[in-house]
């Protein structure tokens, strides 16, 4: 076993993953070698020195500063949880309003188709007019049906928005 091998084992230490017999041979070499012996001792001192390094005195106000920052974090969290129901209610009401609008439009379409009130529907645009004049069955697969579906979807989302946001409050 050469000095290069032994010095390599000294630097790798137990992490090298060699069998104990390999280390034993290296340490026997180090006991009598003027180069490897001091190197092994120095390696031991280094590891011991690093392991025993005392804690460094932190800034005197560190803990106070951290706790003040944590207080601000909690305040922000509380403000967020207070705002959440208001946002959820607004979303729900927006959904209701949209759904009512869609229902009204569909009702108007159905009424005009049933009564032949094409003039009323024509005022609302080409989509509605074509339905009325062609005599198609409401809601069929036309934009009005999609409008109704979107409206109902918004309404449902609006209703559940407060629950979803409330359940994801921090901590």
């Amino acid at each position, binding site marked *: 076993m050469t000095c290069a091998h032994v*010095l390599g084992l*000294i*630097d*790798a*230490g*137990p*992490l090298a993953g060699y069998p104990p017999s390999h*280390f034993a041979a290296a*340490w026997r070499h*180090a*006991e009598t070698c003027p*180069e490897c*012996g*001091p*190197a*092994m*001792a*120095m*390696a*031991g*001192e*280094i*590891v*011991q*020195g*690093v*392991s025993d*390094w*005392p*804690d*460094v*005195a*932190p*800034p005197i106000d*560190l*803990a106070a*500063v*951290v*706790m003040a*920052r*944590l*207080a601000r*974090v*909690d305040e922000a969290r509380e403000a967020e949880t207070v705002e959440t129901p208001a946002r959820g209610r607004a979303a729900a009401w927006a959904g209701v309003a949209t759904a009512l609008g869609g229902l009204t439009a569909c009702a108007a379409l159905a009424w005009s188709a049933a009564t032949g009130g094409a003039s009323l529907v024509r005022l609302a645009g080409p989509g509605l007019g074509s339905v009325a004049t062609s005599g198609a069955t409401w809601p069929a697969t036309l934009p009005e049906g999609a409008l109704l579906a979107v409206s109902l979807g918004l309404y449902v989302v609006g209703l559940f928005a407060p629950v979803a946001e409330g359940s994801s409050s*921090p*901590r």
Partner: protein
Amino acid sequence: MSDADGDVVRDVRRGNREAFGHLVRRYQGRLFGLALVMVRERGGAEEVTQDAFVRAYTCLAQYDETRPFYPWLATIAVRLSQNWLRRYGRQVRREGTALDDAQEPSDTASTLGALLADERGARLWQEVAALPSGQRTALILHYRDAQPVADVARALGVTAGTIKTLLFRARRRLRERLGATADDPRELP
């Protein structure tokens, strides 16, 4: 995690913010030392230490109570230190041995030594502070903070093999720099 840490963490999770102050006071010196070794600037170390505690508090839900608290906290500090070094142009690459080659200015290398009264310890720490960032961090986490190689690898985002290489190089470099002056050979730890 020690029982004391576990009790505190459970208290904090129940909404007792002040309980977190126990953890801050218990680990601030250790964490500040780690941050100082990594960023080598007192102001930067203070910033990293503060941010690490705040991040730990806000992310406490992600902490696994079956594991020790300090290594988790130290991992946060290591990541924040790396961000800090990146932000201030002291690039620490997180892949492969590039971590080992990262060059940094050593203008604050004496900071650690100055904090230690013992001359021999101060010399050692001046040399430790002069190590490349990856070697320095791996050395501190493994030997000083007694973290297994696997945990150090997780904290630094590299493989266990890379950590072993970093530790090998750190030990060799320190040994060569400090010289063979010991009187009595000791068994290698």
